């Protein structure tokens, strides 16, 4: 049976002999946003890095449109999947535009000049994240949130069909965080599969179609966001008291926390 989108099937990953990700099964169909949540150390980053083929799984398979991502050649895979790391940094003094242009690497041959098409894609990516006015600024001179958006633009310039993001709203203020999630929703509407680790449960509730809840490397729940993320589940996984409320403006669920007892 061939399936569309991302299919993660019974994936185990260990780092230096310690099992970090344990038997994860999940899927992200094209055109949808899946949020990955869980406390610190739950294995979110390792799972994303494994799907991005930075880490190799000990067992199980990761496929996109029925193609095994770990068996693919590197360049075609990089045209299919892009990955926004958490807190990526550089010593190199590149401009914002040059950083985004790195995203064209898998589309270019070794010694080819940047094509008109490449330049257009880079300009569009900067425009999409609202950083067009910062193109010639040094990346190092940007604020944390601006850097985060430039790195997202770099991933968009890869023109991926699967976009993986590790805490894309870190460093972003409230409006930029919401704008980023709107952007991811818009991207999904064009047929991209989006899989994002988020630590802010309210953002996850507001912006995802599906949700995967990790706890100590295992999937404790996976399914449509509103049906899956219950107050009991949050309370159990995070060790807090959680209450779900209805958002007064959007009508979507939101969560309020208090300590146990």
């Amino acid at each position, binding site marked *: 049976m061939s399936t569309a989108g991302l299919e993660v099937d019974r994936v185990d990953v260990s780092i230096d002999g310690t099992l970090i990700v344990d038997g994860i099964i999940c899927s992200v169909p094209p055109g949808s946003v899946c949020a990955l949540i869980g406390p610190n150390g739950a294995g979110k980053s390792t799972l994303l890095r494994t799907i*991005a083929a930075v880490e190799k799984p000990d067992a199980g398979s990761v496929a996109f449109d029925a193609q095994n991502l770990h068996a693919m050649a590197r360049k075609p895979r*990089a045209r299919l999947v892009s*990955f926004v790391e958490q807190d990526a940094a550089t010593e190199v003094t590149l401009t914002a535009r040059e*950083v985004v242009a*790195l995203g064209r*690497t898998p589309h*270019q041959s070794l010694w080819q000049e940047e094509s008109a098409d490449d330049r257009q894609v880079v300009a569009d990516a900067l425009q999409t994240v609202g950083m067009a006015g910062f193109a010639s*600024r*040094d990346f190092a001179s940007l604020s944390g949130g601006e850097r985060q958006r430039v790195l997202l633009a770099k991933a968009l310039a890869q023109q991926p069909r699967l976009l993986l993001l590790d805490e894309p709203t870190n460093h972003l203020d409230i409006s930029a965080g919401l704008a980023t999630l709107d952007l991811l929703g818009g991207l999904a509407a064009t047929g991209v599969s989006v899989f994002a680790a988020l630590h802010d449960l309210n953002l996850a509730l507001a912006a995802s179609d599906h949700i995967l809840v990790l706890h100590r490397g295992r999937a404790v729940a996976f399914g449509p966001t509103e049906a899956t993320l219950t107050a009991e589940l949050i309370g159990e996984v995070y060790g807090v008291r959680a209450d779900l409320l209805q958002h007064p403006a959007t009508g979507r669920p939101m969560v309020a926390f208090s300590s146990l007892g």
Partner: protein
Amino acid sequence: MTIGSRHARPAVAVLAAVLGAVLVASVILAVTFGPADISPGEVWASVMHHLGLGATPLSELRDGIVWELRMPRVLTAAAVGAGLAVSGAVMQALTRNPLADPYLLGLSSGASLGAVIVLLLGAAIILPLAAFLGALVALGLTLTLASSLGRITPSRTILAGVAVSALASALTSLVIFWWVTGDSYREILSWLLGSLAGARWPAVAITFTAILVAGIPILLSGRTLDAFAFGDTSATALGVNVQGVRWSLLAVTALLTGAMVSVSGSIGFVGLILPHAVRLVVGPRHRALLPLVALVGAIFLIWADTAARSLFDPRELPVGIVTAIIGAPVFALLLARRRADA
């Protein structure tokens, strides 16, 4: 102007053409420097003659000075300068360390040990070979040590290189301290400080072959090196074979550096400073940086060596002293600028 914004990068093709012309002019002018007074026109005529185009107007002695002594030395300086500058730029990108230089993997210390041993045995004729073998052994030790710690990461490679360098330097010092006397001391010291005094046509053959063999894969890796800017994970996500590229480019640059060290000794600062200086002008992207830093390295070392042999004529300085005297203050300026940027 907005803070942190920069002017457009200058056109690479124009810069390359200008630097290429400066390089040719530098070769001819540098050959005219020296005790025997020779004009640029005479140099040109001698070159044309030896390329089989016309008779030379020069006497046999003067033609010999141009063609057998000065020309090979100037061409070797150009090749060594280009090789070291390119190696430095590649090492800085691969290790993501702005302080990386071509000798980082213990190459120069290994080469020095090999060279000092054969100089001591009075077998100076096989010096390039011994230096090259010394560099290879050091490289092998460094990479073995780095990989025995797990996957080859930049920091492990650097630390392993530091350990191997320290060991080879200690052995070199031991050999010098215990066995070297009188005349050979000066010869050894001049080699350790870097010198092109002995460069004749065989040195030109060694260095130009190394540049051709190593230069092509290095120049083709420009885009790949750019992808290392945000580290290994990001490079992997951009479709780069990180471990494969790092291994093979480290090996290629090491062979290039080994060939250079084998004829010139370890000339410092060229591979460390010039990549930073050229980056300030053309930016950090390697498809522009690598060819331009090669040209700048060639021009720089031609003039540094010309200064080394003519400033205190008839005494000659090891060129490594000249590059260090120029390099150290330039390095300090770059650091100051870096601090102002940060």
